[in-house]
């Protein structure tokens, strides 16, 4: 019975983390899947979101600035707002150039944020991070507190999914696809390419900040490792490419699937003797990178390929009128 209970708790934590990664992947999907923008600094936006809510919601301590004790919702919204502003500034500089420049600048933002975390210890407690972050439902009895948080994450995933799905099917989403597929013709059709790209980039970063905020409250702790480009950036890319770029269902599927694969392989490697376990961890990264390359070359569409919204149906009226 105890074992079963343990498995259940493990399952909940797996689903919670998978859900947080699903939010991140949906954010990346808006940028990469919809708009074709390369964000190499997901970890940075994720970390900024996590730290923002951490500073705003914790109670007073001498270790870092804070003591605001704001409600969670304020933390979430502030995280999204700050990331939105930073994304806007980065976008303003880079979006008129090709995607490569954005990639370089975003990886730069992530590194700069890491430098700030490291140097401004008075504000962020440096490498020791911010702890004792309040967690929603934590006063509920075990395991209901875990369930409660999982539910919160799933609700957030559902809301974000519905919103980005509506966006994808809307005229806005179709313009995004047009820009991604054929920029000159979108321009010729009178679309302001830079503005659309900016919207996609900012919205994507705000969603990533939300995921970061969720993670901070879930773990009750955040340190500069949260901005490690490996976990937060690389995994999310693999999740989206494997799941299916430009397909929101694919993004969610990819996130849960790859998180399970990632965690399951960790269970295997952690049973090896110490020396081997450390080395095996690198093999895991290598293999997951190889998986990315195989998908890029052989199945660029991912598991769930992109489905274009039915143009005939949504434009039905206009077209029948034309036919008449």
């Amino acid at each position, binding site marked *: 019975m105890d074992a079963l209970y343990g498995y259940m708790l493990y399952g909940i934590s797996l689903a919670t983390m998978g859900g947080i990664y699903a939010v991140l992947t949906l954010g990346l999907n808006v940028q990469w899947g919809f708009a074709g923008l390369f964000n190499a600094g997901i970890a940075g936006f994720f970390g900024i979101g996590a730290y923002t809510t951490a500073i705003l919601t914790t109670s007073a301590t001498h270790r870092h600035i804070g003591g605001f004790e704001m409600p969670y919702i304020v933390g979430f919204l502030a995280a999204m707002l700050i990331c939105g502003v930073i994304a806007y500034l980065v976008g303003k500089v880079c979006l008129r150039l090709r995607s*490569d420049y954005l990639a370089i*600048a975003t*990886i730069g933002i992530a590194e700069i944020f890491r430098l700030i975390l490291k140097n401004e210890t008075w504000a962020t407690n440096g490498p020791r991070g911010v702890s004792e972050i309040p967690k929603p439902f934590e006063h509920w009895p075990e395991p209901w507190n875990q369930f409660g948080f999982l539910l919160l994450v799933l609700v957030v995933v559902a809301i974000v999914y519905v919103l980005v799905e509506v966006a994808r099917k809307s005229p806005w989403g179709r313009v995004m696809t047009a820009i991604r597929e054929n920029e000159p013709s979108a321009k010729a059709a009178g679309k302001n390419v830079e503005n659309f790209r900016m919207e996609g980039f900012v919205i994507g970063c705000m969603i990533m900040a939300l995921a970061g905020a969720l993670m901070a409250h879930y773990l009750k702790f955040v340190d500069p490792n949260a901005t490690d480009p490996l976990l937060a950036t*690389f995994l999310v890319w693999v999740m989206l490419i494997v799941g299916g770029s430009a397909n929101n269902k694919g993004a969610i599927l990819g996130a849960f699937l790859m998180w399970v694969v990632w965690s399951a392989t960790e269970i295997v490697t952690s049973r090896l003797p110490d020396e081997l376990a450390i080395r095996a961890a690198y093999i895991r*990264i290598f293999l997951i*990178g190889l998986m*990315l390359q195989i998908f*890029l070359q052989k199945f660029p569409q991912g598991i769930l390929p992109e489905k274009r919204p039915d143009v005939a149906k949504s434009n039905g009226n206009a077209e029948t009128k034309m036919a008449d």
Partner: protein
Amino acid sequence: MADFINFYFIPGLLLGSIYALGAIGITMTFVILRFANFAHGESMTLGVYFAWSLVQITGWHPLVVMPIAMILTVLYALSIDRLFYKPLRNAPVVMLVVASFGLMLMTRSVIQFFWGVQLKSVLPGIQKPILVMDYLRISPKHMMIMASALVLMFAVHYLLTYTKIGKAMRAMSDSPELAKLTGIDTEKVVVATWVVGAALACAAGVFLAIDTHVETRMGFKLLLPMFAAAILGGVGRPYGALVGGLIIGLAEEISSYPFIGTEPLLNPGYKAGVAFAIMIGILIWRPSGLFKGKVF
């Protein structure tokens, strides 16, 4: 003044020439293969570990084994191109950026797997700086690095100016379409780009390793300054990359000189941010860089 030269200007020049050599590969790949190669820093790290292993095996000086390490790094770069970039050459270019991003982590994990993550050194022992003209202090290893970097820069200059393949590379970087029309073999130029880029990356890495130490994140740490140098000099301009690298290196070191009062102008902890700030500035005001490079 002596302090400024000894502790800020010379280290800046040293760091700058390391950035410069690394940035040449970045700028040429950017313009000839048309993508920002995120795995370039990792070629550098791998080159350093090749050199470290060769030093362990032979016991020779790192600069002596460096040519062999360069060849090994070139072989690595060429096989990566064959396996991972070539199949994507007809896909949208941004796919290549994604692939290079993946390769960055794959290569690093391979390095960590085989060599571990502990700090290593290619040149053990401390060397006493030599006093020049009473107040200039230059350590012999710094002189060696500078001299070797200069030799490599001249070699690049010779290659680009006087050899057929070098001229083809410059033609490709000016206008790929025109270059193809005049019958330049694109694949040959691509191979040459990898050879030059990887060899210089390895050399830059070994210089850095001689100056500091060997660690698995060293290439990644150099990635941003190298991109900044390439963009500052103008994408596709090898001489621009040299100048850009020197400027970035000098700016990083000099930024912490106490110009006003006794406090450093910029907290040395933010040195790495200088390259980023310069890059953002150039992207805002002059995306084509100092030497009128390509803007995509």
